[in-house]
């Protein structure tokens, strides 16, 4: 499990798998103002990227892993 939920923030650790997408989506539906902390994330499966793009949550921290951050930023801030 790469997701840890703290009140209004979901903290992502390391790798988000394809299964996590469903969990992330559920949580975002229940928490429309939820934030995502991606700082520890090293990779997320494309399904998660898709969920993030559809939900556009606030990102409280971008991944420290620069190439990943660049792509996610491009996807979420066109």
């Amino acid at each position, binding site marked *: 499990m790469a997701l840890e939920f703290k009140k209004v923030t979901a903290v992502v650790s390391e790798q988000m798998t394809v299964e996590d997408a*469903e969990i992330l*989506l559920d949580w975002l539906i229940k928490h429309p103002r939820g934030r995502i902390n991606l700082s520890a994330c090293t990779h997320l499966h*494309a399904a998660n990227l*898709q*969920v993030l*793009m559809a939900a556009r949550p606030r990102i409280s921290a971008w991944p420290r892993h620069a190439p990943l951050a*660049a*792509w996610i930023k*491009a996807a979420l801030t066109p």
Partner: protein
Amino acid sequence: MNPLLDQFITEGRDILQTIGERLLQLEDTPDDSALMGELFRLVHTLKGNSGLFDLPEMTRVLHAAEDLMDAVRDGRRPFDRPVADRLLEAMDFVLALIDEIGDSAEAAPPNTARHANDALELANALRGLLAAAQATTPTATETEPAATPAPSPAPAAMPLEALPSRIQQELTQRLEAGEPLCWLTYEPEEECFFKGEDPFHQILQLGEPCWRRVSSREDWPPLAELDAYRCILRFEAILNTPAEALHEHFRYIPEQVRIIPLQPPAPTSASSSEPPPDAETTWSFNVVLEAQREILGLTDNPPWLSGRLRAVATTLEAAFASIGQVVERDALEQALHSADASHSSQPLLNWLDEQQRRGDTQLPTAASPPGAPAEDIAPPPEAQEPQEPIKFGRRAEDRLAGHTLKVDQAKVDRLMNLIGEMVVTKNALPYLANRAEEVFGTRELAREIKAQYGIINRIAEEMQDAIMQIRMMPVSFVLQRFPRLVRDTARKLGKEVRLVMEGESTEADKNIIEALADPLVHIVRNSLDHGLESPAERSAAGKPTEGRLTISARQESDRVVIEISDDGRGIDPDRIRRKAYERGLIGEPELERLTDQEAINLVFAAGFSTAEQVSDLSGRGVGMDVVRNAIACVNGAVELHSQLGQGTRLRLSLPLSMAVTNVMIIESAGQRFGVPMDRVAETVRVARNDIRTIKRRLTTVLRGRLVPLVTLNDLLALTIEQVPNDDDEFAVLVVRIGADHLGIIVDDCRETVDIILKPLGGVLAGLGGYAGSALLGDGSVLLVLNPRELL
């Protein structure tokens, strides 16, 4: 049906037949490599054909079969019994699909998605045999080209102009510095997540791009409706990576990516009066140029190098011309000449570099997508799709299909069964009315029930009619195969035949139409084989050398009538008499007595075949009796007329629909039976005194005609006397058997009812004399007699 689909079906059937034959041969000679090669090629060809249509199930199975055959051909897997079995099984599946497509009579192939599971299982079984042989090949799902011709990513023009000018400048500089920049568009297929793919991972592996964009191919739905596992992402990037490397990276999913090498921008071409090339042209130009570069990059030196180089030169000249650039022929000729002389591509490569560097080229980077305004950052999807230069049948017809609803046959059948039960159930109401009156003495209620019954009856009949209409299909469905069949058969027999078909749009119930197919083929073959003469024989008889075969269909009241006539030699009644006598079908007295027409009708007798010699067409004496029985099965009748030397005419008359049967209920030996009304000519009462015995057979005279009589109890082998009424009159049911009438003495004739006739099943199925059974409104079961078989 569109001609391409038609061709596909015809060729498919041929190929499948050959595959079947070759597989069986290969079982005998498993080491025959030529046979093996042919088998592989056949499967391969069929797979290629299926790919032209949207038939993912068929393609999937054929693809697996092809892979297996490939392994067998290369000796990676022995050809053994399991391989043959699996392949035969797979080909049966494919044939069934082809038949289904052939049967659909639609312009576009029908959706075969419901066979998806079978296809998957078959493909897995085939690949299972493969996997046992070699564990190292990439898995099926990876290498399999998308079974559905996946919609290729739209070859949009690159809206580089739409990019921020800072990035444009940077790109220009890098291009001028010679960096191999490529524009990549990657649209992962929707189901890719289920195949274990992670497109984002693919993208991240490419390294840092100069520019990137991630977007969705559709608008995002509200979050609650989002399907997280249906991928609708689009990745775009401009990368400092050679096109070949990108192609290699995406080699398993080439149909999901578009890779366009960028070239440095140039001043707009002033020399050309041509309009700027459109997106598709530019794209094609780039692809062709890239290919020529790759060819020129080859370092081998084969004997055909000179020709290859000349072809490249021709191609380059054409490609530049296609975007409105006329190249200097002299320079190209010179480059070609020195390349040829030095056995090296380098001079041509130099020429190409020069040609591109000179910037004469109308550049892709300057091209706007057709019809899209330049400031349009993300062109709307329809603008991304290049204007289709040609319209192709399939798509256009798909759109036209909008007014027609395609319904699964099973659903219509269910409706049919339901209305059948409704008809039966409504028949309970008159019983109920009678009981109301007789048992409970409420005449008022009985009348009301009868009135309601009248209304329900009318609605039920209309519903039945409406459902029947759905099942109607044109006779052309079975006739369409005849032009080919007649042509091929006639050719085989060395005869000249013109086929004339009339009334192909006449409609009848699907079951009737289907029941017609085999008898018709047989009749037509008979006609070609025995009826029509050879050209020489015809001209000797003073006829045109080309024989004429006519198949006409029309509706006559509630029946559909099909006539097959030829202008051939006709049937010789004397020869029939002789043959029938020789075969013991008739005795000496009949030999004299039979009229010509009666003699001709003998061809319907079981075991009669007029063929002088067994021909490979009509086979061994499968005669007209088979035809007559097949037609009789759907309550049809056959009449044969023939004029010696003039020709033969067969007239098939069939009901328009066979779903509901009107039967008369009769009583005999204390039981009730049904007799189909279309067999009943009339019902009469015959006084005991009017029944005579002539030659030990019961007869009576009806309207001046002698009618033979039989008792039903005799026919049913019951040793019970028929019961007359109080006036000592017997109830007689006069039935038609062919052209004859026969009186069947029963105890009583009752009302007629509509029933849904169900064939007898189980142990009873073999019981002759019964057409089937039906459920009556009062819940009892009625056995329906088949007078023809009873006799």
